[in-house]
């Protein structure tokens, strides 16, 4: 008689689980733990203290950054919704000309490196901006791009795609009979949208809003370039930790704890609202597209054309900029490839680093992603839940915070990683793994579990079945996630800027430095490299997934 064995099986999956959990503890939990412990100490006071937090909430210098962050996040969410929802509505309900291209354009502008947007708008609308000067010459003054309004403007153009993607997904799944029923009950079109369509898409819209809010809250590059005194939390963290005058890891840690608490609050709020209001929709008849013709069709598309043009403009500006050679005073010397020659000689190490680090990170992300997705979907249990929770943790930890955590955790013996390539790669893996795991596990959920059993039944061992059948079939899901991981790796700035050393600097760090040094040309050339790589990578997944790529 065989007894029911409750013993832990020491098989392959046991060791995978063990290593994944150890890895996550070492590189996520432990760094974050060190941040928390650091935050309750200070070099001014002995022993455990809330000194840092008291200072934060009493000194205007600190707490204004929290207010600034909230103001920026709040208004960005509002404007992104005002832009994103109508676009989603128009795109799902009308036969807008060039719909496919617009859709791809919107996704491209979301995936482009965020700080490149800020940099391009400085080129256009900054103090010495092209448009600013042109308008000034005819006596017109435009509002400044620097400060709060500029940050909100750039964030809105960069992040409205989240709102668009979430809500258009929901709008496509509304059964058309629902709106017809409202019409049949005597509602006019506007009231119909207000009373039926909007409430039904609300959970998705909220999810989109939370994405926008969290991205704003965590982003470092845009407010750093545009802020000029309007300091938000991530910039404050950077200043506290990196400023040449007085490095204060205790205060920086306390600030990090504040940011993560804010993110967690927002997430909990979303969960509370969504759990209460979630409509199950079995869409039998997706909404029909309304055919417009001639001028009407053009007018319906016009707002979308304008927004997508504005959102995509930074990419174009950057590319143009890269071919213009300027003197130190900013005078145009000619159109040539000198910027590229200059980065090839001065910054080739950064370029190599970006690609090498990202490739190594992606290699690990794919392998860990396949294994972890499999555990999450097929080996459910307590360990799987724990792994799921820890894997998704980087969603709420901004890059700069993770960067500080890794530095504090690994800058002393026995493990000194600070300044090495390893720490850059580790931070990329930790931060970008969720994309691949999400995509891979979603794909695996739809896969027939009996296929694996069929293989085992035909005489192939479970281990061999996993590699020959399961992993092979998961590949499309894993790869489309991995491309997103890859794109976000090469464009990564907020943790790189904390972790880089002279030898391990990357393209994005170099762009940031070149921009602050006013070398627009070389920055443009570097940004062009990133933009082109991003666009090519995205086009590859559009190809691979036949346009059905899931960004959100």
């Amino acid at each position, binding site marked *: 008689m065989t007894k029911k064995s409750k013993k832990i099986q020491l098989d392959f999956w046991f060791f995978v689980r063990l290593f994944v959990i150890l890895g996550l503890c070492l590189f996520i939990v432990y760094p974050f733990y060190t941040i928390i412990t650091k935050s309750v100490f200070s070099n001014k006071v002995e022993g455990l203290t809330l000194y840092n937090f008291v200072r934060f909430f009493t000194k205007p210098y600190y707490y204004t950054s929290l207010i600034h962050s909230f103001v920026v996040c709040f208004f960005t969410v509002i404007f992104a919704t005002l832009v994103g929802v109508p676009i989603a509505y128009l795109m799902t309900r009308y036969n807008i000309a060039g719909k496919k291209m617009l859709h791809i354009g919107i996704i491209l502008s979301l995936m482009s490196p965020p700080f490149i947007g800020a940099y391009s708008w400085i080129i256009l609308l900054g103090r010495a901006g092209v448009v600013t000067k042109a308008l000034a010459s005819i006596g017109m003054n435009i509002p400044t791009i620097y400060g709060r309004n500029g940050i909100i403007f750039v964030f809105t153009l960069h992040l409205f795609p989240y709102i668009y993607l979430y809500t258009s997904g929901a709008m496509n799944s509304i059964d058309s009979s629902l709106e017809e029923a409202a019409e049949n009950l005597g509602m006019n079109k506007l009231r119909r949208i207000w009373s039926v369509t909007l409430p039904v898409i609300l959970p998705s819209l909220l999810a989109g809003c939370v994405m926008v809010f969290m991205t704003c809250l965590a982003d470092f590059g845009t407010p750093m370039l545009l802020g000029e005194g309007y300091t938000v939390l991530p910039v404050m963290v950077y200043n506290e930790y990196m400023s040449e005058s007085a490095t204060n890891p205790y205060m920086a840690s306390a600030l990090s704890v504040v940011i993560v608490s804010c993110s967690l609050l927002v997430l909990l709020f979303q969960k509370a609202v969504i759990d209460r209001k979630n409509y199950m929709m079995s869409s039998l008849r997706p909404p029909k597209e309304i055919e417009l013709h001639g001028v009407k069709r053009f007018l319906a598309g016009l707002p979308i054309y304008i927004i997508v043009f504005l959102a995509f403009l930074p990419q174009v500006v950057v590319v143009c900029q890269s071919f213009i050679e300027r003197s130190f005073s900013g005078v145009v010397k000619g159109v040539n490839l000198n910027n590229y020659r200059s980065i090839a000689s001065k910054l080739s190490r950064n370029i190599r680093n970006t690609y090498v680090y990202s490739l190594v990170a992606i290699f690990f992300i794919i392998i860990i992603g396949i294994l972890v997705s499999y555990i999450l979907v097929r080996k459910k249990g307590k360990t799987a839940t724990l792994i799921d929770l820890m894997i998704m943790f980087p969603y709420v930890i901004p890059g700069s915070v993770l960067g500080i955590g890794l530095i504090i955790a690994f800058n002393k013996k026995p493990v000194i990683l600070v300044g090495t390539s390893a720490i850059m790669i580790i931070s990329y893996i930790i931060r970008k793994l969720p994309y691949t795991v999400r995509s891979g596990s979603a794909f695996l959920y739809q896969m027939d579990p009996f296929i694996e059993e069929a293989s085992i039944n*035909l005489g192939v061992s479970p281990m061999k079945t996993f590699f020959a059948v399961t992993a092979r079939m998961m590949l499309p899901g894993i790869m489309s996630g991995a491309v997103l991981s890859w794109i976000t790796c090469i464009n990564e700035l907020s943790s790189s800027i904390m972790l880089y050393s002279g030898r391990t600097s990357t393209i994005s760090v170099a762009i940031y430095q070149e921009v602050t040094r006013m070398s627009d040309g070389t920055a443009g050339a570097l940004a062009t490299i990133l933009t082109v790589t991003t666009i090519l990578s995205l086009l590859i997944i559009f190809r691979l997934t036949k346009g059905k790529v899931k960004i959100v």
Partner: protein
Amino acid sequence: MSNAVIIKDAVKIYEDFTALKGVSLDIKEGEFFTLLGPSGCGKTTLLRMIAGFNSIEGGDFYIGDTRINDIPAHKRDIGMVFQNYAIFPHLTVEENVAYGLKARKVSRKEIPGRVERALEQVQISHLAKRSPSALSGGQQQRVALARAFVIEPNVLLMDEPLSNLDAKLRVQMRTVIRKLQRQLGITTIYVTHDQEEALAISDRIAVMKDGEIMQIGTPKEIYSRPANPFVAGFIGVSNFLDCEIRSSSSGSQVILKDAAPLPIKLRKEFEGKARLSARPEQLFFTEQGMPGKILFYTFLGDFIEYEVELEDSQTLTVNEYTKDTSIQHDIGEQVHISFDPDKISLYDAATEEVLSL
């Protein structure tokens, strides 16, 4: 080596409930054996224990003389056809069929011939190079079948293989499966919840309910002599009537309300409350018998199905074959119903034990 399958006291326990409560089966070599029962009866659980995909909490499983309890699934050498076919989507039809042969390290020279023969046997040779996504449900079913038997397994398991097909194809495919099984002589264990399918295809059937076996027998035995009211109700249509049995020196009699007592033969002495079960075709209209009224009728071509209300407002279904009579009764008509006491089944009302011969 004999490929009989013997299962002794199989027990399956999920966290808080027992899915199989000590099931024993003795399946003969070359037999087509069906596990039949409603969903949740444990039939698929048992099949997956034989295949090695479910853990075994108790009992012994033998194929021939080999105890398979501790042999991992991939070494059991059992073919299986899955409900949704589980065709490898990334392989062509012939690669699917060759998959198990490659795993068995069959020589490269031999594989193409065996694959070709298998595809011929299920009549899809022309689809060999196709990708599974380009196949219809019935064709995928044939691929799954070929892939399972090409490895010449000791035993073939089938888990509701026809449930995803439309009615017409289902009948067609079950004939294909039955003929192939006869031809190859593979011991086959087949799971279904469709009693008609089970009757049509099996050598023997085990009817299961709540993790226990209710009856094992040939289709004919199970249909005409159901072991308990559950089997009588699950297989085909049955009318149930409460009755009483009285015995005297001259024999036993069944007594129904409003009808003359009928003599019956019992397998043992019994007196008291009983349940009578009769198939619709075992009931007929006569001059004397239980009085009732026609409530409704449905003309179904070769027979007419009558719904009759008895005086105590129980309703019965009575089938009358059009070849046997030209009379058609009307709604509201008063009729009398009787039956041949040797053909119906009787059960002890308390223990549900079978009483009739």
